[in-house]
């Protein structure tokens, strides 16, 4: 169509147009309408788990020799988060004269697991730190005195992540299930839970989008039957009352997650 032919029968709009300016609809609390996925503030995402995906006979993947060598394994899904864990051991420890066994953890993000950037194959500083955190969170639950001269290794791979703290919490739950699958002696299973502070409200199990706007994040690992907090991490500013509240809510949520893990483990035996 030629450009200099003007259609005179219709009202022509201007050649250039701009988007109208709307009055701001932003309210003081951007989350007044609740959460994106319709969850309650203290509701964690639905959990799916399966033990022994790397060593189970019915799985078609079990032909892989390295995977089936694991003493125990677990796959854990919570919303978009997918974590798998393989536990090896108890096997010969590096320190041959140790009175107590050691628990080592190796945490890795898969290169494609994060929404914001591709993960490098080289182990990053944060992966090393999360490995340490997981050791600190899980080790108090293991009866290390029952495994002299031995070590237990857990290898965690994050296949998909959604929320930093929530992914670590998911890793804790996944390791707990894998350790149970491996038959490692434990005082209790550890359940993990994370929260983010939005304004003055704690929001449980934040997704990445929610975590980006929260001013403070808390991660807690708890052994409900032993009534022991095995790990706590807070990042960001809060009042002591808020921290107290976070600890309380997190322990409650951990107890609920723990119930899910226990119920699954029981049903997997039947």
């Amino acid at each position, binding site marked *: 169509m030629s450009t200099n032919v003007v259609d005179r029968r219709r009202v022509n709009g201007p050649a250039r147009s701009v988007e109208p300016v709307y009055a701001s609809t932003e309210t003081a609390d951007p989350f007044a309408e609740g959460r994106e996925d319709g969850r309650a503030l203290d509701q964690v995402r639905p959990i799916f788990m399966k033990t022994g995906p790397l060593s189970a006979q019915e799985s078609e993947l079990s032909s892989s020799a390295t995977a089936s060598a694991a003493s125990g394994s677990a796959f854990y899904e919570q919303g978009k988060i997918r974590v798998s864990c393989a536990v090896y051991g108890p096997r010969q420890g590096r320190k041959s004269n140790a009175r107590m066994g050691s628990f080592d953890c190796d945490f890795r993000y898969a290169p494609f697991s994060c929404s914001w950037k591709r993960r490098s194959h080289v182990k990053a500083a944060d992966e090393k730190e999360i490995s*340490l955190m997981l050791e600190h969170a899980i080790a108090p639950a293991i009866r290390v005195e029952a495994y002299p001269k031995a070590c237990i290794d857990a290898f965690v791979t994050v296949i998909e992540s959604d929320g930093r703290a929530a992914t670590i919490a998911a890793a804790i739950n996944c390791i707990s299930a894998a350790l149970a699958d491996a038959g490692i002696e434990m005082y209790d299973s550890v359940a993990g839970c994370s929260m983010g502070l939005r304004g003055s409200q704690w929001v449980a199990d934040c997704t990445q989008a929610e975590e980006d706007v929260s001013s403070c994040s808390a991660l807690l*690992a708890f052994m409900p039957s032993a*009534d022991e907090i095995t790990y706590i991490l807070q990042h960001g500013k809060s009042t002591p009352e*808020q921290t107290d509240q976070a600890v309380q809510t997190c322990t409650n949520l951990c107890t609920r997650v723990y119930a899910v893990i226990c119920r699954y483990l029981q049903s997997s035996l039947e």
Partner: protein
Amino acid sequence: MASLTLSPAEQDYITRGIEKGFRGDGRGGLDRREVTLRTNMISQANGSARCRTGYLGIGTDVLVGIKAEVCSWKPGEPEDRGTIVCNVECSPSAAQEFEGRGAEELNVELTQLLDRILNGPQSGIDLTKLCIIPKQDYWVLHVDALVLDVKGSIVDTLMWATRAALLSSKRPKVVVESMKDEDGNVHSEFDVVDDAEDQVALEGAENLPLTVTFNQIGKRYVVDASEQEEAVTQARLTVAVSPQTEICAVQKGGLMRGFPPSLLSEILQTARRIAREEFARFNDIFTAASTADAADEPSTGSTFLGAF
């Protein structure tokens, strides 16, 4: 943190002592050791501090140097703020097991802990003031810490030294010039004023937190554990508290045990109380250190001998 091997009898002695309220060096459960602080003794750095916790010249010794560098903005980075990059290194001179890659785990743990405390609004430092030109240039503060000696309670000493170093830091002034070209686009350039007299302090550094680390030993907990006490520690909890006694970070360490929830809230309350005293003490020592002339220092064991 550094592993000291103690016999079961020694471990039992320390644990029972603490349960009855006695510590090896005569302190109470919530008392701290003597702190020695020197600031600005590294001329090449923008700010520096050396802090030692311990008696008679023996103790945990941490040296922190701050370097400010201009960095150009890359897509994906925050547009209107600078950053703080932390690095903690445990020197092999501190303990034999730090030789080679032996200190790697501890380095990572301390670096990430420091990063978690400093890099964000909880640090109090106004990161937006470290931006020179949005989406173009910003300041990076490199906080490099060197742990020279380890005699218990590294984290608290590290935080003292870092706080003192950042408080004594000055960065060069920058002058930003903006020009409009014929299309109406604004181009900005900046000049770093190369004058030692014309430097600015970091804004908000006085709001930096301090940490209080609790070590659970037996049924009790102690603050500022010595090397021997750390060897029998079952669980460790570090709480970073701002001068306004808000909680800036909490981290648990230690592989042996966890805390019951009731103990945790008690510790958080105690942390605030101790932090209040700590800030008063820090201010006294820091003012004394920054006004002291190197020549008229008293020659007691509580100052640094020789070096610097």
